[in-house]
């Protein structure tokens, strides 16, 4: 059955499910702050409110159609890259190169919109990788050259290249996934990544003791990690039936990829922040920190999930 927005039934059910979850989260956060079950309930309320805004924006981006979704993801990459450039030390001589790096965002998403897989997959790792140091050389400033070339390209890889893999899911041939095409895959990936973040956090708070990487992020515990993996993977197995072409052993594997990669993305960005001696990458999202704090897990989960599903099913 097709409706006005041309949405698949499965996607509509998934969106309803997300709203149910958000409502539950709101109710829980209200109860917690009413009965003072936590030390700092205000932060939790703020966080849940921001989840509402982010979820609504994401769902809106998904239902308005493929191309607007790409614009949404391009904008997210732009915000993340801008945040990254704001927190890293840059030299005055880098300005033109930073400008070029920003220009690569519309180009990368343009390749995606044309479904040009070959270009999408090599544009930043090959062409931008070669072009940025070249432009940097032309500025004539050699002091700090390697650091600039390295840091600028690293940020481009994380915020544009990696995140754009999530967007490319939209361009995978819809016929291969009768359960809602690329949009359903994107929903599956983003939903599980965020659920993984939240469940690792909650499990870590409730029964986490031994720290995984105490030097990088004292908040990460084995309890949280394993709890997150279990919750995310079991959800993946259930949801895969409705949203993806993945069958049983594959869906289990997809869940493991998303949860473990999500954790790695999180601690990698934590390392970056530790190195720069900052707590949050920004303060765009109330209660969450910056946009980079929010998409860190996705930047690792998206390319791995994308290539996994593309190799086995497309």
């Amino acid at each position, binding site marked *: 059955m097709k409706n006005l927005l041309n949405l698949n039934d499965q996607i509509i059910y998934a969106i309803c499910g997300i709203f149910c979850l958000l409502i539950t989260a709101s109710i829980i956060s209200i109860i917690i702050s009413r009965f003072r079950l936590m030390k700092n309930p205000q932060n939790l309320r703020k*966080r849940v409110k921001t989840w509402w805004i982010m979820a609504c924006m994401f769902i809106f981006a998904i239902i308005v159609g493929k191309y607007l979704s790409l614009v949404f993801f391009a904008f997210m990459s732009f915000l993340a890259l*801008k945040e990254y450039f*704001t927190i890293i030390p840059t030299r005055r001589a880098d300005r033109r190169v930073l400008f070029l790096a*920003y220009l690569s965002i519309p180009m990368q998403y343009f390749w995606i919109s044309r479904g040009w897989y070959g270009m999408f997959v090599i544009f930043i790792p090959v062409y931008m990788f070669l072009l940025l140091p070249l432009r940097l050389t032309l500025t004539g400033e050699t002091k700090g050259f390697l650091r600039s070339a390295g840091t600028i390209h690293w940020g481009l890889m994380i915020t544009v290249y990696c995140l754009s893999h999530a967007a490319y899911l939209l361009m995978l041939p819809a016929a291969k996934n009768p359960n809602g095409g690329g949009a359903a895959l994107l929903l599956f990936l983003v939903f599980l990544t965020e659920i993984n973040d939240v469940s690792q956090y909650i499990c870590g708070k409730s029964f986490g003791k031994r720290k995984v990487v105490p030097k990088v992020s004292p908040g990460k515990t084995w309890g949280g990690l394993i709890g997150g993996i279990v919750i995310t993977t079991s959800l993946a197995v259930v949801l895969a039936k409705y949203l993806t072409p993945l069958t049983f052993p594959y869906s289990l594997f997809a869940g493991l990829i998303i949860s473990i990669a999500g954790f790695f993305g999180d601690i990698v960005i934590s390392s970056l922040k530790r190195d720069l001696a900052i707590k949050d990458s920004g303060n765009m999202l109330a209660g*969450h920190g910056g946009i980079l704090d929010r998409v*860190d897990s996705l930047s690792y989960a998206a390319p791995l999930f994308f290539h996994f599903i593309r190799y086995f099913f497309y």
Partner: protein
Amino acid sequence: MIVKPLVLIILGLNIRHKNNLPKKGPAIIVANHNSHLDTIVLMTLFPLKLLPKLRPVAAADYFLKNKIISWFALNVIGIIPIDRKKRVSADKVFKNITDAIDNKDIIILYPEGSRGEPEKLEHFKTGTAHLAEMRKEVPIIPVFLHGLGKALPKGDWVLVPFFCDVFIGKSLKYTQCKKSFMHDLDLQMEIFNKEFNSSIDEEDNYSGAE
């Protein structure tokens, strides 16, 4: 104004203590100056209906040298031109500004004198104190801007997006003498500078992302 969403999307502002902004004129905004964007950003902080009341004080030798720029500066932005070179009496120099204050306008002033080196805080020149002494009852609001000198520094025309910080201080009133007033103002800017730097290396209370 079309510029407002553009500033918010391309740059992104992180505004602290926004409630310290004056709701109506007369008032004097005193800010550090690193970029042409400073004025645009300061203007976007105010609601649209106050826009005609905002009057940035700008160098006549720079903004009035070309007809197009001068038309834009005078009629669209509404600058008060001030001559940096000629040596005339203080009253004459400030005539246009005091007139604007009497007209309940909000004056934007850059006491560093020029945009200077990007992201370097320079000592405020004492013109502000002269002005404050002439109009003792007018509140003076110090504003610290950071990041705009990186986005569009002096002598460059390519705008590179960065998130920028805006700190808005409590309003000051003119005290007994010029020297102590300037000291207060300098001190306030230094405090902002420190607050900004400490928000960067806030290492305690680190909990990691969610």
